[in-house]
């Protein structure tokens, strides 16, 4: 919930920026007329800091976008945007170079989807277990461990995938290599699991206990209460946790670089070796001539990545907004 309310806070902040009504005359529960002058100015200071932070965030984000676009967009004067996105030939150093990133878009989508298919059910189940079934003591032990996992450097997970998981996947599916989309997807699932579990658990625990009591008092079982009352009531937080998880999975570079196989062709199956956009950018950006065509193409790939995450967030926001309105 803490982190999930980010978009809402942001909206409020934007409302304030746009000069809409300031609703904080009872900030921290103190009415300005009742507060001492000293407290009043402290309150002003806090408001000022929050406003400034909001502005700085907006400015930095705008600058990042500007950088991406000024460095990336020029590629479209030599490569048609349609063939850039929808073709699979990637010969960045040929003469003339060819830039088609479809293989990498598909690669990114495939590993991310695989990660979600694995992480969402496990994550939601684990968070429901922590929130409703585990004893408080057990929860206090497990939750910090999960949050610690979230801080594990992804290169460590990359090693684990490379050394332990890849051989297992290779043998299980009789593949020529264990470094492929499936291995990457499973490792990405580990990357987004802590986010999903931790935030979902927060929002499940934040469901008013009155709902829970009402369900149990009507003779609902634990499972029915979780499925029919708690999860629906916490769905905006759960959705937000999944979206943050998607964000981490799409943006993750090191793991896909290490275990996805790195093949440049369009993957047909999830068990094919493949490349994701992030990995491709990371590998090539050092060899690209500053300001050259390859350099521009890599930045343009960054724009695509950026727009994809943006789309995920906008869709999530729309879904949540719709649900909020339904039971407001």
């Amino acid at each position, binding site marked *: 919930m803490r982190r999930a309310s980010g978009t809402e806070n942001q909206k409020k902040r934007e409302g304030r920026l746009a000069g809409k009504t300031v609703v904080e005359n009872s900030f921290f529960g103190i009415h300005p007329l009742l507060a001492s002058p000293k407290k009043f100015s402290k309150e002003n200071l806090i408001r000022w800091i929050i406003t400034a932070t909001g502005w700085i965030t907006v400015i930095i984000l705008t600058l990042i976008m500007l950088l991406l676009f000024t460095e990336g967009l020029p590629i479209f004067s030599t490569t048609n945007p349609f063939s850039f996105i929808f073709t699979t030939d990637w010969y960045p150093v040929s003469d003339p170079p060819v830039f088609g990133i479809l293989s990498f878009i598909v690669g990114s989508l495939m590993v991310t989807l695989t990660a979600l298919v694995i992480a969402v059910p496990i994550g939601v189940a684990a968070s429901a277990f922590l929130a409703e079934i585990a*004893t*408080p003591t057990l929860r206090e032990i497990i939750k910090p461990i999960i949050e610690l996992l979230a801080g594990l450097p992804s290169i460590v997970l990359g090693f684990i995938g490379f050394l332990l998981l890849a051989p297992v996947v290779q043998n299980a599916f009789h593949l020529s290599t264990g470094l492929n989309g499936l291995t990457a997807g499973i490792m990405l699932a580990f990357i987004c699991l802590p986010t999903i579990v931790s935030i979902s658990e927060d929002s499940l625990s934040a469901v*008013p206990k*009155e*709902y*829970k*009591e*009402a*369900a*149990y*008092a*009507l*003779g*609902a*079982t634990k499972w*029915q209460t979780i499925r*029919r*009352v708690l999860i*629906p*009531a916490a769905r905006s937080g759960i959705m937000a946790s999944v979206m943050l998880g998607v964000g981490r999975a799409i943006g993750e570079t090191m793991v896909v670089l290490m275990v996805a196989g790195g093949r440049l062709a369009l993957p047909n199956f999830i068990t094919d070796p493949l490349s994701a956009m992030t990995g491709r950018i990371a590998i090539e950006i050092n060899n690209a001539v500053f300001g050259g065509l390859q350099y521009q193409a890599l930045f343009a790939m960054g724009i695509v990545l950026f727009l994809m995450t943006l789309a995920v967030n906008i869709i999530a926001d729309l879904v949540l907004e719709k649900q909020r309105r*339904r*039971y*407001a």
Partner: protein
Amino acid sequence: MMLDFSVKMKTESISLFYDKTEALKKISLAIPAHQITAIIGPSGCGKSSFLRLFNRMNDLIWKARVTGQVYLDAVPLYDPKIDVVELRKRVGMVFQKPNPFPMSIFENIAFGPRVHGCHDKAKLDEIVERCCLRAALWDEVKDKLRDSAFALSGGQQQRLCIARVLAVDPEVILLDEPCSALDPASTMRIEELMQQLKSQYTIIIVTHNMQQAGRASDYTAFMLMGDLIEFSSTKEVFTSPKDKRTEDYITGRWG
């Protein structure tokens, strides 16, 4: 104590501990069938804790422990073999603050039957209508069953919660200060409703409102600091209380 009524539920020297503090001290009380029994007493004396023994809601509280026994008809509720889900079907509960689910009015009432395995649309329609009628809510909601329950007023929400309990067809209904968040008109409606319901259900109501206990109940139990001080017909408790502490409380002299 001489009992001149048929007993629906009864507690036998039941004690409740929250961790190590004893919140209820060996209470024995018989609840008359098809009557309204009021439990009164000052705030914090254990009324809610006591009421929650009757459908084992205290099971949900971490580190709450019970000794003694509660019977529903002849069934010992704190027997390890008891199916709590089945028990809560037979003993329903309405809470202090109206607590409809964040769902439509229809979904709220259909929740109980659904979790107990009824998925037939026509049957659910019938249950929802019957329970709304019985909870004196039908006229107000019949055109907006698909609207959110939160669109209703507090009094309507509380009657919705009663309808929701009726939908699982219980034998006993526990009400924990059901009117404390409501205005006087809604309170009157709920009291009338209880009178209509008592022919079919056994009702136990916790209230801190002396007038309410006096006008709406048949029997009254007075509790103080985890003890049951007095139990008798409401008339007797209010006109000739046996215990000095009861008298002090109902005459408003109690601190």
